[in-house]
């Protein structure tokens, strides 16, 4: 399962003004990689993710999964949004199953396993309004995993959570990645998160959105945030930003 991204250009209209969001983004992602994309706001990183998901097909260029052009959302691509986007009228287990029937023994078994995996035992029958932000996001992850995606696309999935929950969910995600061999693409604006999770960190710049640098992170998992080599890697990526002409755009990077 490899992904070839070759987006020549992507723009959309904001009122009457055209905005050039992405320009010449070429990237090849191999099976089982964990790519983290980081960049200033407005660099088109979320747009890029939506293109790979098949949610946005209005661009120039091609995106192929195993040589097949994407023309819409597919079951190979799971997607986790910044907000949990659960259906408020369904319980936790119903949300995970969604359009699959819980009466089906296979589905039931898989849903139970996933509830165990994301550590939500005892909350099967709860409605989203009764969950905390972190729990709701875990339900969303379970919902995506039930479809057994080969690629999981995550759009700033933990940015609305407190630091503790975020760290916990990052570990949950790493667990899933190591156990299920899913290719991950995660967009973030948290430098620590990018280095902690990614096998490759892709640094983007804005106006128009382009790849500034792709940095391979070869540190072994589980990574120690306090370890000198982690800090060194963090510094290296940070330097990429500092060379950017548009330093005011650093806002919101958590640096």
């Amino acid at each position, binding site marked *: 399962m490899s992904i070839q991204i070759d987006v020549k250009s992507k723009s959309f209209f904001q009122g009457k003004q055209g905005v050039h969001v992405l320009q010449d983004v070429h990237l090849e992602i191999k099976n089982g990689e964990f790519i983290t994309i980081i960049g200033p706001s407005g660099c088109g990183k979320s747009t890029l993710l939506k293109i790979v998901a098949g949610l946005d097909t209005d661009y120039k260029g091609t995106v192929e999964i195993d040589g097949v052009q994407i023309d819409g959302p597919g079951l190979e691509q*799971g*997607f986790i949004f910044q907000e949990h986007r659960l*259906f*408020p009228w369904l319980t936790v287990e119903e949300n995970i199953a*969604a359009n699959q029937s819980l009466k089906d023994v296979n589905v039931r078994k898989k849903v139970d396993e996933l509830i165990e995996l994301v550590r939500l035992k005892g909350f099967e029958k709860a409605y989203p*309004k009764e969950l905390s932000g972190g729990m709701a996001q875990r339900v969303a992850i379970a919902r995506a995993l039930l479809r057994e995606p080969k690629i999981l696309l995550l759009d700033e999935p933990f940015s609305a959570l407190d630091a503790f929950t975020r760290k916990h969910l990052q570990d949950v995600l790493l667990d899933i990645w190591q156990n299920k061999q899913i290719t991950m693409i995660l967009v973030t604006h948290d430098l620590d998160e990018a280095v902690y999770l990614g096998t490759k960190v892709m640094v983007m710049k804005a106006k128009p959105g382009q790849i500034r640098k792709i940095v391979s992170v070869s540190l072994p998992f589980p990574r120690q945030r306090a370890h000198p080599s982690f800090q060194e890697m963090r510094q290296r990526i940070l330097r990429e930003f500092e060379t950017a002409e548009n330093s005011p755009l650093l806002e919101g990077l958590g640096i």
Partner: protein
Amino acid sequence: MNKTTITARQPLLRKEWERKIPAFGRKKIKKWMTQAALPLSVIFIWQLVGMTGTVSKTVLPTPADIMNAAYQLTISGELFTHLKVSIFRAATGFLLGAGIGLLAGIAVGFSTKTEDVIDPTVQMLRTIPHLAVAPLFILWFGFGETSKILLIAKGAFFPVYVNTFLGIRGVDAKLFDVARILHFSRWEKITLLIIPSALPTILSGIRLSLGAAWLGLVVAELMGSTEGIGYMMMDARQFSNTDIVFVGIILFAVVGKLTDSLVRVLEKRLLRWQDTYKGTM
């Protein structure tokens, strides 16, 4: 000796009795008392004023007179016959109007093309009052049940239509993205996303529509009929039996409130998932 043991025990007994009523029961009684306080005191003052004889009984009969009239009508069986006819009319009219309203609302909600064709006309018709079309309905369908039921249906149609339309268009576009990601079929989009999301709005449309059906019933029965609560009231007015007019009014209020409560029970059941302000600061 005996006396002292009894007085010593009493406080304990009372405590036990209090404990026997569960907390939620006590809360319910308290809530019920809050709701009943205003109407009960109004009735009390009304009765007092009536008993002083300052107001003529043809203008304002006392609550006791009204209760007596209701009792007489009940044992003669008259009340029940009229009520049966009225409820049948209101229910048929409501089902017809609300049913068509729901279907039309869904049709318009799902397609902008249908919206362009149907909605402007419906919005124009919506503002025409009952009394303006009542003569036409009589001319077309006669004095029989058809014209009455159609008039009620006309009233019941609009709230359900408007709210169904609004409810469907109010579905969060972000959840549509989720439906695309999860590969929902068209049918799954309707049953898993659109209908549940529109349900609160549709249900409030149904509540409004029940009220409108009731209103249409009064107009329909007052414009000429030989049975039904409206007829009973018209008849009583001619003979200055104001107490029976009041019985009719109260009946409308009680049955109206009962049907409304029924829908609210339905709302509570179906909308357990809702996370909205409950009115406690």
